């Protein structure tokens, strides 16, 4: 999950240019909105709420009262991306994911990038996400992260144009694609007439693409692979999505206890007896996969699964050990990976990042804490970060002590002026900060994605944290031609 950063300058607005004019790709929408009575919009909003409740699209917020499920707020005003912009993004995303997969293959085999000194070895070896168990294990197609979620934000450039930056790579179990699909369904149901004014590129084939991707990475020689979705169970925050995707793909949704390993082959129990499993789309962390190989106290996994995996009898998607490539301490090196493995210049830029393990960076950052965003390198989900401009003096001082105690655990970034998109709020329509998470699928030789991605919106005024675990909402995302 990503955290967004805070604005100093005027942010780039997706709908309006700096002089207040409506950007061309939003003009048909603007005209439509103008014709719509406000009461009708309000009615549609409550219709959407009821429908989401009925479908059961919910999200657990950890630490919230009783950990109970709640709706992720859905905003009716779509985020629109021109087709030309998307094609450039798509090129950059495919390049980045290709490089990240090449990096993972290298790190678990020859470690050429370490030998070449392009990444300091301790960033890998002293990283709990690096899994020695994966050393020398050959995975189908050399692919590790078949399903990647790349978090993008757009900041205002000097010329007033918005520039996309990669905020974070999610290579383990990125979630959120069910909202992307349901948001589109909801929009088409509430405002069918809107879709006659735009050529919105479809996204509803995502489950088909996902299934094709999973089948493409089946163990060699398997002609008609059996694919399953593995969930930690109904208490997981993304359980809705696990069941949703299994249902959409027409495959079984299983928990660890539904499977067993015999003779290094994985089976699931069915009413017709054991059935061999070839590909697991697992939505469970490495640590819990196999109590024999990882956490011995895991009740969620399958003993012997790692052995079946190492023997090449089953494919895990995503592979074990991908976390070493999406850690915040590795993030600064991704552009270098693109150059090293692909011999290309990165299409998508990183947010400039200071690594506090470096003395000079540390001194620079400590001088400017109130302006910067500081993140824990192993943190996720918007927990354990400091947003300087939004923090009190006491909070900043408290964080300074934490940094000084273990500087290598932190990175810092400038507070970007994250782009905004008009959003329905109590008082009417107002700009709110947004990000974008496209889902990138790698299977066989192809890298594919559905146009757009999940747009998350920080609903509180001025807030930059868009994570659903921190109370953000979502928008439908349109790529239009």
């Amino acid at each position, binding site marked *: 999950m990503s955290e967004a950063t805070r604005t100093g300058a005027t942010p780039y607005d997706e709908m309006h240019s700096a002089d207040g004019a409506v950007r061309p790709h939003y003009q048909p929408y603007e005209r439509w909105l103008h014709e719509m009575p406000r009461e009708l919009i309000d009615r549609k909003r409550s219709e959407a709420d009821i429908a989401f409740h009925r479908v059961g699209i919910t999200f657990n917020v950890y630490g919230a009262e009783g950990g109970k499920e709640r709706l992720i707020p859905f905003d009716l005003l779509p985020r629109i991306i021109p087709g030309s912009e998307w094609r450039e993004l798509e090129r950059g995303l495919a390049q980045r994911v290709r490089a990240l997969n090449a990096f993972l293959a290298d790190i678990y085999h020859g*470690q050429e990038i*370490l*030998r*070449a*000194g*392009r990444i*300091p*070895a*301790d960033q890998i*070896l*002293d990283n709990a996400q690096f899994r*020695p*168990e994966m*050393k*020398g294990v050959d995975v189908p197609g050399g692919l590790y992260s078949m399903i990647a979620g790349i978090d993008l934000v757009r900041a205002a450039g000097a010329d007033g144009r918005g520039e996309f930056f990669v905020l974070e790579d999610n290579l383990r179990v990125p979630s959120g694609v069910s909202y992307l699909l349901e948001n589109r369904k909801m929009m088409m149901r509430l405002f069918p007439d809107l879709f006659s004014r735009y050529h919105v590129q479809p996204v509803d084939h995502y489950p088909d693409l996902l299934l094709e991707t999973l089948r493409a990475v089946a163990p060699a020689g398997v002609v008609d692979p059996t694919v399953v979705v593995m969930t930690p169970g109904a208490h997981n925050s993304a359980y809705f999505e696990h069941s949703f995707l299994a249902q959409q793909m027409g495959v079984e949704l299983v928990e660890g206890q539904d499977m*067993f*390993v*015999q*003779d*290094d082959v994985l089976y699931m129990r069915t009413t017709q007896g054991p059935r061999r499993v070839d590909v697991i789309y697992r939505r469970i962390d490495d640590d819990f996969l196999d*109590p*024999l190989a990882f956490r*011995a106290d895991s009740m969620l996994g399958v*003993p*012997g699964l790692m*052995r079946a995996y*190492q*023997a090449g009898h089953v494919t895990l998607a995503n592979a074990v050990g991908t976390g070493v490539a999406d850690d915040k301490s590795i993030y600064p090196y991704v552009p270098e990976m693109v150059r090293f493995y692909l011999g290309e210049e990165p299409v998508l830029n990183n947010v400039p990042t200071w690594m506090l*393990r470096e003395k000079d960076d540390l001194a620079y950052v400590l001088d400017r804490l109130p302006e910067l965003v500081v993140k824990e390198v192993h943190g996720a989900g918007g927990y354990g970060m400091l947003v300087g401009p939004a923090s009190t003096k006491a909070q900043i001082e408290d964080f300074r002590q934490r940094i000084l105690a273990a500087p290598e655990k932190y990175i810092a970034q400038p507070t970007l002026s994250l782009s905004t998109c008009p959003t329905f709020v109590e008082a009417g329509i107002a700009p709110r900060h947004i990000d974008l998470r496209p889902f990138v699928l790698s299977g066989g030789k192809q890298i594919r994605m559905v146009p757009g991605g999940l747009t998350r919106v920080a609903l509180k005024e001025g807030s930059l944290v868009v994570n659903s675990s921190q109370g953000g909402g979502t928008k439908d995302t349109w790529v239009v031609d």
Partner: protein
Amino acid sequence: MPLYDIAHDTIYRYDSAVLLSQQLAHLRPRDCVGQHCLAHTLTIEPGEGRRRERIDFFGNPVTAFSLQAPHDTLAVHARSRVRVKPSTWPERAGSAPWELAREHLRKGLSGHAPLQDDARDAGQYRFASPFIPLGDPSARLGDYALRSFRPGRPMVEALLDLASRIHADFRFDPAATSVATPVAEVFERRCGVCQDFSHLMIACLRAIGLAARYVSGYLLTEPPPGQPRLIGADASHAWVAAWCPGVGWVDVDPTNDMRPDGAHVTLAWGRDYGDVCPLRGVILGGGGHRVEVAVTVTPVGSGALPQHAARER
């Protein structure tokens, strides 16, 4: 050159039937500098379970097996014949200052410089691992280590001094700790068994920037006439190897305050106990269990095998 026969028997008795058992065994002595395994058999009762041999990520042979028929006793009998060459030790005084090892690792691992293969291998054993976290106590452990690792002192000399101090400061007490006792607690309480002392020493070395690995193995059960019996001789044993540039891995046994020299047989090595424990498994059913472990290491041609039963140390 000494030739040993090793018998390592492990027997689990369960209160009720185990329906399914998946086990990983690190029981075949690995070949390494100064050691060659001439013969090895692993007998598993009940029956011949399904098994598969492979090499794990640290280069150790590992046997994975599963039992799918109900059983209330699991017995694993390992028999090995191993030739051991007494190690040729770098002269204490001749070895380089210990800081060289630290610098070599620091430069190799944290800089933007090409990484040498030896440092890359050593780097695997330089950082925290599941049984050896380097959190809060690492500063205290580092201080403890630095009293041996004084500036400019030759690496091997400092290493042996640290082992001696651990041997002197800590009491051997099989009742004091369990497999799960954290290093910090061992350090507080000043007692434990070979596994604890090895973890402690590794933690000390890593805390000051050195690479150290955990060696699982055996000791000769009955010493040659006139020599004392070593601690840990009737069970699995463990000691430490530290990395020294230009020399390689240097073994040292803090439990016996000595350099392994012909009476130690290496089974496997890893970052800590968790990587190489002789037998580890997940079972379905079984209720409570009791375990008996017996290890004997006898020079070939010495006659009858003495039998010792003791809990694993």
